[in-house]
């Protein structure tokens, strides 16, 4: 029996999702736990349709998006209204996804919530005026 929170969809501008997923694969070998999508040229309704299709095919209950104001985030919020027990995390970064795919818990919402906190605290600034 697998100890993992299941799959997560990653959505964002241009090739953002594919880039992050390839980085996760390079670091952990668990890129297959993510389903990257790109939405270039799609209207909002088509983004929603794509997300519904990917959720159904993958069984994922988690969607990570790149930007709070992004069209993927808007579409995901609409789609996830219809999916009990699901969660959306906007503002994804690489440390967040690494935490998610390495999670040993089986609750996807708990894993996504913990990953979001990990991603939030993984930003640091070094240097500056002398």
């Amino acid at each position, binding site marked *: 029996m697998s100890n993992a929170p299941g799959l997560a969809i990653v959505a964002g*501008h241009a090739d953002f999702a594919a880039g992050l997923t390839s980085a996760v694969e390079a670091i952990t070998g668990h890129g297959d736990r993510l389903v990257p999508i790109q939405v*270039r*040229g*799609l*209207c*909002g*309704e*088509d983004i929603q349709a794509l997300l519904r299709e990917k959720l159904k095919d993958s069984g994922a209950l988690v969607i990570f998006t790149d*930007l*709070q*104001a*992004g*069209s993927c*985030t*808007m579409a995901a*919020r*609409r789609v996830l209204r219809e999916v009990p027990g699901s969660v959306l995390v906007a503002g994804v970064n690489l440390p967040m996804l690494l935490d998610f795919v390495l999670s040993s818990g089986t609750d996807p919402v708990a894993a996504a919530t913990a990953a979001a906190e990990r991603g939030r605290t993984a930003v640091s600034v070094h240097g500056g005026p002398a």
Partner: protein
Amino acid sequence: MTLVLNRIDDRLIHGQVVVGWGQPLDVHFIVLVDDAVASSEWEQELYRMGVPPEMEVRFLSVSDAAAHLDDYRTEPRAGILLTGDIATMSRLVAVAGVRDVNVGGIHHRAGRVQHLRYVFLTPDEQRALRDLAEQGAVVTAQDVPAARAVPLEELLAAREGG
């Protein structure tokens, strides 16, 4: 300042609008004109969530917009007027004095032909854009500030995506 951008974008509020245009133009408010959104608290909350706290979003029906746009044009801060389709912008050109129209995003849908990477139009939508120009509006296509503004005739003649 005034309404610095009158944009047609079927994604309404999203990254290009808030960040791509909003930051360089120092935009402090967005006027979103859409009858469906204006009648739905849930939709309004969704769009408010997408903007930073210092940016205000005003939701108006098409009929209400005509009465308010003159006031918004006299505000000291910059704003963006946003519609999700050509028909709504056409009403605002006709009754609310809009003179410059930015085609920012009309995406793929059955029956539409691709003109630019971010503009797909049906024959009726092509005619509607020409009608805007005939009403006196200057119509250009431009998704982000760093891109070139494509004049209407060039937009309508362009074909991409095979």
